[in-house]
């Protein structure tokens, strides 16, 4: 691929002078707190299910995940999630809520083109990359593990 074009240093200097910086440290802290809170809530729910509802750990875990996915889809649908996402950034994007939101948002966006060709075909428009590279990296890791066993 051809190298990415770059502004001349004189213009880049002007642009840098007037462009507000991304507040990386603040974004990291809000992402940590927001994401941490989400995970702590989910963990508490899991704990309650196992301790008080007598559900085995391996069954309680998917129940909590499904709840997080459901709530994300709900918040996406009623138009709150994108506002939370602007504030909490990676805190919501990294947990499974980010994946659920990308699918729900894409399906909603393409609703106007119909159920199959609109919502259906576009549902994994953003999440598709996560799925395909997730599966591929899992394959690579398993292959390495298998190769190490042979030695």
């Amino acid at each position, binding site marked *: 691929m051809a190298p990415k074009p770059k502004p001349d240093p004189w*213009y880049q200097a*002007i642009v840098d002078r007037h462009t507000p910086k991304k507040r990386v440290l603040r974004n990291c802290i809000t992402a940590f707190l927001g994401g941490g809170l989400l995970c702590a809530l989910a963990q508490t729910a899991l704990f309650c299910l196992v301790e008080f509802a007598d559900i085995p750990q391996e069954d309680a875990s998917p129940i909590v995940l499904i709840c997080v996915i459901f709530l994300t889809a709900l918040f*996406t649908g009623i138009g709150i999630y994108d506002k939370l996402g602007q504030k909490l950034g990676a805190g919501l994007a990294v947990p499974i809520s980010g994946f659920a939101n990308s699918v729900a948002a894409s399906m909603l966006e393409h609703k106007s083109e119909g159920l199959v060709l609109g919502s259906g075909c576009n549902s994994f428009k953003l999440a598709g990359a996560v799925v395909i590279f997730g599966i591929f990296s899992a394959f690579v890791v398993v292959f390495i593990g298998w190769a190490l066993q042979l030695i």
Partner: protein
Amino acid sequence: MQITQKGRQTWLFDGPVGIIGQAATCGPREGEGPLAADFDHIFPDLRMGEVSFEKAEQRMEEYAARRAIAKASLTPDEIDIMFAGDLINQITPSGFTARNLAIPYFGLFNACATAMEGLALAALCVASGVARKVLVAASSHTCTAERQFRYPNEYGSQKPPYSQSTATAAGAAVVAAIPAPVEIKAITVGRVRDEHITDPFAMGAAMAPAFADTVQIHLQERGVSPDYYDLILSGDLGHVGQDIARELFQLQGITIADEKLGDCGLMLYGASTKVFSGGSGCGCAASVGFGHIYRLISEGEIKRVLLCATGALLSPVSSEQKESIPAISHAVALERGE
């Protein structure tokens, strides 16, 4: 009427090229802004009673066009040519509006500079006698632009502080070679400038050089100083782009007083911080130019305005292919008619 080409990019009209009808419409957020009183209609929600945002944008553009024609005391079949454009793929809102109005139609795309591209072409058409009455229209909608250029609307991505928010607004004007309270005295057709900005969120940085270039060429070719104008407006540079443009003017040796420089996308929202660095989109220059600025000039509050709509000529594909963002700015001099 005499049309004089000055230099290479500027044309002057020595007779009246009047805006005989105009209208501006907008969405709910713009309707809460400081220019609310200058809109002919404020749609209270983004769907505007339609099933899709694309239909909503088309409805808003058609409303503005019909209103402008009515305010000129005309009917659509008395308009000879329509120039219109927007930001959606294949400029469908404009094409559909032209279908519904049944006016001979030229579809335009110069991104957010489309409104002034259309106005410049309309002025050339009526001044040369090619057409008697020409309609200009342009629109943008925050939800259609978000989907067109960025992510699904409800996707929770984090935008950087220098990004801009597309305005939900449309503007339309009818131009004819007859005297009117607001007349077009000169146009300058912009050159495409590219300072190799690649970040699609950094629109102000990508477009500021085109704005500075067009203003410089206009002043030089028309032979006037910045003081000749009461206002020199960019379309949608936002805070970031305006600050960059100020510095570029200094480098060019052009002194423009701070209160004379403005930006339609910033005027639309006032001090609202919900739009990050400012508003953007075809609707900014179209609705502010044909709404607010038209009123200021026609009521005599100000006399001369240089309106330079600014457009970024990128597509989602070009930006994913790591191409830089070329930009353009067209200038139209709007002045109080005698």
